């Protein structure tokens, strides 16, 4: 079943800016889906329309088969939104923020209290439930928003840059949490600027640029399209010039550091054999760029 279906979705803002130019997109139930794009590409507008915060100029949105225009309540009940910026009342406690949201979704008081406790515990916030939210750390505020989005047990969870500005430890714990939520059957749509986040979490991906979907496929086949890998090699001994190896582009960054672009069909064994033959000893190796980042840049700059 399709968790989300966008059909010819368009949005032109009042000053004439065309944010979405007729996008079509489908997300299957149970998917962990990445929606990527540069700043101003139209991601937030698309998410705003799906979550009823922005009015579409034309086109249709259906959530688990419910049309957002004609079956609004049913469609909205399926969605949980974690927005980019903190948007709760900073004078409320974490518990009342989540509990009120349960009320807006019509959960009876007893169930709302149970769900609130469950979600706050899942986000490791139960001990902070009575803390005024403006006193919480940035990471905790983000987790409050996730707990709030999940309190009505949505079938589709939309996370708009949920890990922006949080430290690595919290980011990793949020990744784990998102994976658990997805494994429990919740469909997740994730937008992020951390492309390694999308690469490691998501199974399918769409890239949006200038209001159009420029790529929509599964992550594996998208990454398979990358022909050239880029590596940084740290050498044991200094060089005065970059070595020459057929098929590879090699640049001497400093006397003991090489920047290597190597086509997939050549492979690392060939590279190392050639370097060894030239008496060059490699101490360590790392990817120059994230693979998805490379593809992303190729797609959004290929105009």
């Amino acid at each position: 079943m399709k968790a989300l279906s966008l059909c010819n979705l368009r949005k032109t803002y009042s000053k004439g800016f065309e944010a979405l130019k007729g996008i079509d997109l489908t997300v299957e139930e149970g998917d962990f889906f990445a929606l990527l794009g540069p700043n101003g590409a139209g991601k937030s507008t698309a998410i705003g329309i799906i979550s009823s915060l922005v009015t579409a100029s034309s086109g249709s949105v259906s959530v688990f088969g419910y049309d957002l225009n004609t079956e609004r309540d049913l469609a909205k009940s399926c969605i949980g939104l974690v927005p980019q910026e903190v948007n709760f009342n900073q004078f409320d406690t974490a518990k009342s923020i989540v509990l009120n949201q349960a009320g807006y979704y019509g959960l009876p008081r007893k169930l709302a209290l149970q769900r609130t406790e469950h979600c706050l515990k899942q986000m490791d916030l139960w001990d902070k439930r009575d803390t005024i939210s403006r006193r919480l750390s940035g990471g905790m505020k983000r987790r409050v928003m996730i707990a709030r989005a999940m309190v009505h047990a949505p079938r589709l969870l939309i996370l708009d840059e949920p890990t922006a500005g949080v430290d690595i430890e919290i980011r990793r714990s949020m990744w784990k949490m998102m994976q658990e939520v997805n494994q429990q059957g919740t469909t997740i749509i994730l937008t992020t600027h951390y492309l390694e986040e999308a690469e490691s979490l998501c199974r399918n991906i769409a890239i949006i640029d200038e209001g159009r979907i420029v790529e929509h496929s599964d992550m594996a086949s998208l990454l398979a399209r990358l022909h050239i890998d880029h590596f940084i090699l740290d050498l044991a001994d200094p060089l005065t010039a970059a070595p020459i190896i057929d098929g590879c582009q090699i640049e001497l960054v400093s006397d003991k550091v090489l920047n290597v672009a190597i086509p997939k069909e050549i492979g690392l064994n060939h590279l190392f054999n050639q370097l060894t033959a030239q008496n060059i000893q490699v101490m360590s190796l790392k990817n120059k760029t994230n693979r998805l980042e490379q593809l992303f840049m190729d797609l959004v700059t290929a105009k």
Partner: protein
Amino acid sequence: MNYSIAFKTIVKKEIYRFIRIWPQTLLPPAISTTLYFLIFGKLIGDRIGMINGASYMDYIVPGIIIMSVISHSYANVVSSLYSTKFQRNIEELLVAPVPNWIILSGYISGGIIRGLLVGIVVALISLLFSDFAVHNVTIALVTALLTATLFSLAGFINAILAESFDDISIIPNFVLTPLSYLGGVFYSVDMLPPIWQTLSMGNPILYMVNAFRYGLIGVSDIDIQLTVIITGGFIVTLVALCLYLLHKGIGIKN
């Protein structure tokens, strides 16, 4: 979908908000009206004598109560709704399956409750200065309820259209306060020259003050039925306007 739960949640949140900040919401009207009663009612009123058969103190009590109801029902909705817009937690309601009429009725109920609560506080204080007997409870309650509803709706529209905190103080300062003072709170329109009497008839607050005054002390310059029709007409018009603004997402959606 159980809309009554969503409605109760909004109303409870609104009540909790103004109770939590009671030194800003409930205490100031108690102090300012005590001063009104002392200065206008006691010190100046003793020299004025009777108006339409009532002592000056008794005459101004209903006007001061309804003036408090007007300003606080308006202030509650405009400040609460604009704050939710400013902090963007209005989005909590917009993403949820809450119909516009529930959002509207929730906020309006909050405004009515605060307006009436402040009215009760002021009425209790007035008992320290005046010993009037309520003339018609039904008319007094209906007028207070309609007045609180009307000005809660006006506050809702102000909040929806406001783009800054300055915008939510313009109407109270430059429209509501002058209309209240010119609405016969402290005087009878019969005391005005004919041209000002005619102009005063265009002030809706005059009708509410007089209807409430009739309910409390049995004195009025205006026909009570006309008050109910005018206030009811304004309420219907403003409800329609609020629902239109919400439907179009004006001021709250992109």
